[in-house]
């Protein structure tokens, strides 16, 4: 081949890397008519043991959630057994826009949750994990210690709900003293997005 590329070389989308007879195309590449091309801006990597070829992206990275991504969003709507979240952060990156995700009651807590409203309410800031993109809808879960509500407001007066103590996991309103229940994350109120 005339234009042989080396590992670690800077590469832009569309550059020809090789043919499928030579390498196994891995992430950052695509195949068309038996030819492997790059689809990212990044550095080329050849794995001589497995013959895998990939392109490590150098761009800021696309903030599009994958299964397993940790996302942060507001609850915007609760319909029956599902809470809908406006996802504004994926991983460490703030989105320029937002995406909508669905959180079903059965995925809120490892324990049984009878009503969505016992665990999350509209306006809550929630950290969740993506479990599926079936039907091209982001399905979320808050099962797990570090997942759940990270900031909530009182449903009576709108004051910030405070944590009584970390063990009891009970929330009360700093303004009116109203007690509420939520599925909270272990760092509730710490201000970590």
């Amino acid at each position, binding site marked *: 081949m005339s234009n042989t590329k080396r590992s670690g070389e*800077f590469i832009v989308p*569309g550059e020809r890397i090789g043919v499928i007879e030579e390498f196994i195309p891995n992430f950052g590449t695509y195949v068309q008519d038996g030819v492997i091309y790059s*689809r990212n*801006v990044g550095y080329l990597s050849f794995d001589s043991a497995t013959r895998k070829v990939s392109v490590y992206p150098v761009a800021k990275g*696309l903030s599009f959630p994958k299964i397993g991504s940790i996302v942060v969003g507001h609850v915007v709507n609760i319909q029956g057994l599902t809470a809908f979240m406006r996802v504004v952060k994926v991983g460490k990156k703030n*989105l*320029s826009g937002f995406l*909508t995700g669905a959180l079903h009651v059965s995925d809120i807590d490892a324990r049984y949750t009878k009503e969505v409203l016992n665990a999350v309410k509209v306006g809550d800031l929630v950290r969740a994990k993506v479990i599926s993109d079936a039907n091209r809808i982001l399905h979320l879960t808050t099962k797990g210690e570090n997942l759940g509500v990270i900031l909530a407001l009182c449903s009576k007066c709108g004051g910030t709900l405070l944590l009584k103590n970390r063990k009891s996991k009970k929330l009360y309103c700093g303004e009116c003293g109203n007690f509420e229940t939520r599925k909270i994350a272990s760092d509730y109120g710490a201000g970590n997005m």
Partner: protein
Amino acid sequence: MINENGLRVDGRKPNELRLIKMEVGVLSNADGSAYIEQGKNKILAAVYGPREVHPRHLALPDRALLRCRYHMAPFSVEERKSPAPSRREIELSKVIKEALEPAIFLEKFPRTSIDIFIEVLQADGGTRCAGTTVAALALADAGVPMRDLVVACAAGKVDGVIVLDLNDIEDKEGEADVPVAYMPNLGLISLLQMDGSLTIEEFNQSLNLAMDGCKQIYKFQKEALKARYVTIKEEVEECLR
């Protein structure tokens, strides 16, 4: 329009491009951005997304919606241009969108939109081509997976001579103009327009010249991306040290 030495109004040879300067990652709030100066053209491009489509009914169930807004600033031309999108700007938004569409893996992001904003700060002919070139850079900067970069360039006929990369005067006074958007690695043309009249032979000549121009501009595109990311890598290494 062509002097006795065979040089054009701005002193270029018929097959010579204007001076090109490109920069990637110029806007902090966009997901991806780029800037180009091609002769007296000055164009900014910003890319946002993939993000949720609004209004929602425009969302496509199987792929991302690509939206493009080509806009000329009121001060970009000699006579003040109304900031409202004109018939011409609406058409250019559409053709630039269609020129970029085949290069992007839209099917990876169903029910979302990728929005491109092209703002012409100063215009001097060939802005649809420069706009396409800079939008492709902004897309690559945003990390959108692409089949190839898209690069565009025009050729045309001025005073009976086939010339490359027409400027405003040549575009208006010349006989014909053929803008071409091209994916250089795949060898595919994604935009081909013509105004004026050319013989078949002249047309073929213009098309080949425009594609040659595209290949030259492609090198600048690659350099611009490299300049952006190689410096980032160095900065990161600097911080780690």
